């Protein structure tokens, strides 16, 4: 019997011939990412060293990345003080992969990491953020952990007591119809298997539609793998992975022995097949991500706020779709449209290509890159009884800062078409 991609990556990270699902291992970490919650990681990290007589030093400052994105610029003195504390720690420990609140290299961690070449195929990547699953798009085993677990990684360079996860093989064949996006694929899949359908498992993506999909789309898929409960999502690296690394991440050398593929006879817990050619635009309805319906079933629902952006759908191709649909039109009266690019690199490219001007002229507000309205911390909160339609990843009750509001999730095309109409709209009917 052969091995899944994650079994192969973990064997490599443990310096072993092979590992199998169910075993407990302590893999070496190639990249450890945190955002503002590094403030908590620092506390726990110091606790680990307390009373040992050892000086608290991170195991490898070159393998730690810290990106401020959750509350940027700081919304409160408390956040600002946390950020200050993290900056001081970063300086003291010599952590160079630090992306502060800056227009030249800031952004959302799950965009900043790939576009700076901080993620490579076959790497073990951990992050103190559940959407760390994103980086599986580049063939890494990448998963979210808590702050105390990260403190242990900073101290030891390994994730302790990891149970090798089983894998669900998801094959997506066919080609995506016009105005059907990777977001629709992952929403459909989550609706199919439920919010707990992949709990403690990996979603390994295969098929013709995946091979044709850009890394941006693969990031969307893997980003939301966690919404089906998955430990990780992963796409076996291919020509597109190498192209992205070379052209968009500045990585020229990728060792051939890191381009791992699962064995044809790998043992999967379950296999799923989706024909992309029959997919329609999808919408996840309040208040769970698996409450997914074809857009036609919810068309006409009035929306007071449309949000395009986030680590899920804030990349250049997402903004391009939105700009194309909104160009020359106007966001409906009674609807606010907020756009927040995933990084300043994306923002700059969108400026240069005129997308930002298209969006502004249509009446959208373009915000600074960051997590923004997605988690309801300090921008774009909803009023009582209001409805938002967003390209973000979660619609849990209270997610956008108000438990008396509702959030629907969709692709950038559905969001843009709906902004024009002021109600949930099938983009195929607008264009």
């Amino acid at each position: 019997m052969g091995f899944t991609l994650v079994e192969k990556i973990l064997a490599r990270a443990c310096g072993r011939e092979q590992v199998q699902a169910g075993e407990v291992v302590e893999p070496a970490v190639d990249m450890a990412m945190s955002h503002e919650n590094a403030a908590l990681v620092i506390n726990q990290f110091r606790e680990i060293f307390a009373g040992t007589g050892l000086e608290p030093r991170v195991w490898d400052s070159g393998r730690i990345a810290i990106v401020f994105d959750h509350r940027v610029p700081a919304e409160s003195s408390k956040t600002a003080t946390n950020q200050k504390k993290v900056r001081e720690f970063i300086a003291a420990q010599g952590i160079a992969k630090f992306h502060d609140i800056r227009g030249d290299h800031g952004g959302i961690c799950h965009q900043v990491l790939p576009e700076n070449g901080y993620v490579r195929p076959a790497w073990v990547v951990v992050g103190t953020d559940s959407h760390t699953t994103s980086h599986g798009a580049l063939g890494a085993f990448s998963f979210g952990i808590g702050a105390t677990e990260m403190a242990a990684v900073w101290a030891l360079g390994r994730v302790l007591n990891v149970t090798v996860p089983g894998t669900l093989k998801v094959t997506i064949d066919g080609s995506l119809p016009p105005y059907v996006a990777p977001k629709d694929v992952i929403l459909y899949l989550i609706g199919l298997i439920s919010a707990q359908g992949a709990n403690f498992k990996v979603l390994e993506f295969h098929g013709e539609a995946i091979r044709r999909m850009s890394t941006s789309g693969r990031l969307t898929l893997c980003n939301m793998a966690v919404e089906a409960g998955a430990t990780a999502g992963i796409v076996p690296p291919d020509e597109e992975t190498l192209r992205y690394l070379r052209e968009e991440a500045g990585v020229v050398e990728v060792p051939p022995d890191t381009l791992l593929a699962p064995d044809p006879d790998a043992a999967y817990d379950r296999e799923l097949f989706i024909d992309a050619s029959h997919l329609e635009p999808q919408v996840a309805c309040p208040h769970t991500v698996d409450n997914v319906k074809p857009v036609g079933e919810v068309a006409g629902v009035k929306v007071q706020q449309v949000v395009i952006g986030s680590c899920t759908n804030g990349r250049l191709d997402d903004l391009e779709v939105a700009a194309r649909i909104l160009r020359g039109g106007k966001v409906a009266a009674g609807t606010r449209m907020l756009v927040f690019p995933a990084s300043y690199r994306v923002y700059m490219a969108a400026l240069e290509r005129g997308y930002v001007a298209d969006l502004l002229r249509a009446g959208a507000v373009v915000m600074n890159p960051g997590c923004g309205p997605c988690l309801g911390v300090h921008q774009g909160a909803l009023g009582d009884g209001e409805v938002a339609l967003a390209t973000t990843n979660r619609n849990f009750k209270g997610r956008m800062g108000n438990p008396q509001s509702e959030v629907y999730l969709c692709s950038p095309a559905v969001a843009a078409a709906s902004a024009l109409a002021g109600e949930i709209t099938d983009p195929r009917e607008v264009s």
Partner: protein
Amino acid sequence: MATVVLKLGDDVSTDIIYPGRFMATVLPSETPQHAFADHAEFNRRLRAGEIPAGSVIVAGANFGCGSSREQAASCLKGHGLIVVARNFARIFLQNAVNLGLQVVVCPTAEAEEGDELDITPEAVVHRGTGRLFPVTPLPAAQQAIIDAGGLIAYARAKLLERHAVGGDAANR
């Protein structure tokens, strides 16, 4: 003996347990005030000290789904609560184990608010009906962290062990 103080369904997210707008608060001494902040009455009773340590939240499947925020575990631990659920989401479960929040995987538990339970490593017993619901033990890898007194202590021991044998190479 433990009293059920809150009964919840499936897919209770970390946004329900600890809303995102309080994420700038990180200290375990401060997070408990925001536990279930949007369940206003339950939050008020917690803050007023009306819910004794050792009280139980009973929930369905996938408790703690969503964000990796550790505050969701630390805020419940701060009140000394116990969570009995059909099963837990991965990151929340690991955070609970790491911080020492008592979590009980009990796939069949049936109880309502106000009911009294006896919780042992093997079973949850309903005092009123006498029914016994078997507990699914945590995996050995997680039990080892609990036995060590939490992940901080577990990692500290590993760190000292490594320094005693002279570096990471010895561990590979």
